[in-house]
């Protein structure tokens, strides 16, 4: 990583407060950090420390209560102004791909159809061939016409990764991508993410409880009580 690498994601004093009755929970409490293009950042920390909440803010899945967020120099959140679903969607589909602990494949669609599904709603030019290419790259070419129930958990997460990448996002957001997998499968998914980061320059923002996985990235951030600490 060179100092010239452009900052793609910059958070300043990002804060998210949840209200539960009269109680206020500062799930993310004034986090400032910058993520450069091609970085692989891992967030670790105890349960309830605000990892998911922070990553969701970075991924424009949620509006912050306060603070600012810039995407490639463009102001997304700031000045207390909230973006509506349509505006958020427009930002998300341009920049992000997401994977989650539960893979959320559509059970009625085949592997191939699941990966192609995002293109039914939004399609960047020239991505038509990506479905086959990604599935082949992830070693799923022999499972293209299987339904999700017919493949293993590790394979499901590969399909979810292919689906997240089909529109060529700049940043992949992964919230505990191996949380539902055994050590071996988790390692495989880790290797895939690392390869993607190294070979294609994909920026990855990941949350993981697994120290081995978290150390794959060049950068480790620890969350504690809503605050971020670089390690």
């Amino acid at each position, binding site marked *: 990583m060179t100092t010239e690498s452009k900052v793609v994601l910059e958070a300043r004093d990002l804060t998210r407060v949840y209200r539960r009755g009269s109680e206020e929970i500062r799930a993310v409490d004034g986090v400032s950090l910058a993520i450069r293009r091609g970085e692989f950042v891992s967030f670790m920390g105890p349960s309830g420390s605000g990892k998911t909440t922070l990553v969701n803010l970075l991924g424009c899945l949620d509006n912050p209560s306060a603070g600012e967020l810039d995407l490639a120099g463009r102001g997304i959140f700031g000045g207390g102004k909230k973006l509506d679903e349509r505006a958020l969607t427009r930002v998300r589909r341009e920049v992000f791909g997401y994977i989650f602990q539960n893979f959320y494949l559509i059970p*009625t669609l085949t592997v191939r159809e699941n990966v192609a599904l995002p293109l039914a*709603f939004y399609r960047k030019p020239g991505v038509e061939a990506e479905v086959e290419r990604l599935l082949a790259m992830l070693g799923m070419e022999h499972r293209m016409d299987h339904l999700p129930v017919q493949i293993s958990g590790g394979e499901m997460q590969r399909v979810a990764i292919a689906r997240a990448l089909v529109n060529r996002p700049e940043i992949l957001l992964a919230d505990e991508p191996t949380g539902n997998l055994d050590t071996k499968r988790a390692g495989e998914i880790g290797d895939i993410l690392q390869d993607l980061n190294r070979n294609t320059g994909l920026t990855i923002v990941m949350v993981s409880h697994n120290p081995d996985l978290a150390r794959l990235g060049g950068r480790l951030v620890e969350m504690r009580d809503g605050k971020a600490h670089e390690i």
Partner: protein
Amino acid sequence: MITPFQVACKNLLRKKVRTLLTLVGIMLSTWVLVSLFGFNRGYEKALNRDIENMGYQLMVMAKGCPYEAATMMLQGGTGLRYMEQSMVNDIMEEAEVDKITPILMQAFFDPNKGESGGIAGYFGVDPDSYPAMKPFFRFRSGGWFRDNSAAEVVMGYEAAELEQREVGDMTLVPEKNVQLKVVGILERTGTQDDGTIFVPLKTLQRIAEIDKITTIGIKVKKDADITKLENKLYQLKDVQVVSFSQVKQTIMKLISTARVMVLSIAIVAILIAMAGVVNTVLMSVLERMPEIGILKTMGAMPGDIFRLVWTETLILCGIGGVAGIGFALLFARGTDLLVRRILPYAPSGGLVVIDGGLALLTLGSIVAAGLLSGLYPAWKAGRVRPLESIRRDG
């Protein structure tokens, strides 16, 4: 490449039994609906045909003339009033008149009838114009008279029974002692024509020594304004007008109650189908919250999700509607029989008439009702926020 339409179809196949039950509900209500529409259309047609079979829609009579043969008989033929035969030509001038026929009603006392004698009703009719008024008359044997002054009679079914006459027999006109030859005997019609003896108009005028008539039967042109003609006829001096459109109106009023009942059943059926659609689609939306959230992280706009869910509704209603119409066409005969049992008065012929236009209209209504019921689930799905739906599952 996968399309939202395919996604919608595959989702409906996910819970096959639920989808099937919803389809059956939609199908049944479409069936009821299209049959009802068909009935509304068919019934009036059939009734009009029946009225047509009554012969004339209007009767003109001299004022004070009892127009029911029964009344005429009760009065023993003394109360009859007459009008000039030239009146026929005057009325013929009216634009609305299609066919017209002069009739002379006469009643003679027959001492041999019953124990103390009775009244025999004679209709003097014009063989050139009268048969066209009653095209549904069927002869049990024989046929109409040769001409307007022939010494012949045609007997109604019961009249012939009563006098034990066959074609070729002679019959005596009581009081007047004139012999006439029976040339035709009618089949039973279920009307007062059954008890009537028809004689050529000129012959009856000669026998009764009258050169006038008592009644004029009028058939109105198709689509002509009967009320307008009625009003014009009321302007004529010393006549009264009896209209079968009044009779028809009475019958229509009678069945409109039955129609209201059937209509409310149809509305209930549609409401049940709609509730079924809302339930099915809403359930499937609630079950799929995380999936819908994921679609949103993929770049689906609220409108995309709305359309996806709405498409499911459309597919359900489209298939259910087409199946319902298919069944309605298949079992139209059975529906006919059923409706006949409920109704106070059912005309002959097809009561439930379903054609292409009607089928399309019904399909349109069902799809519209379905889309209406899909509105809420689709709106709810469109509003799902990716985060909430994913976390709820977490």
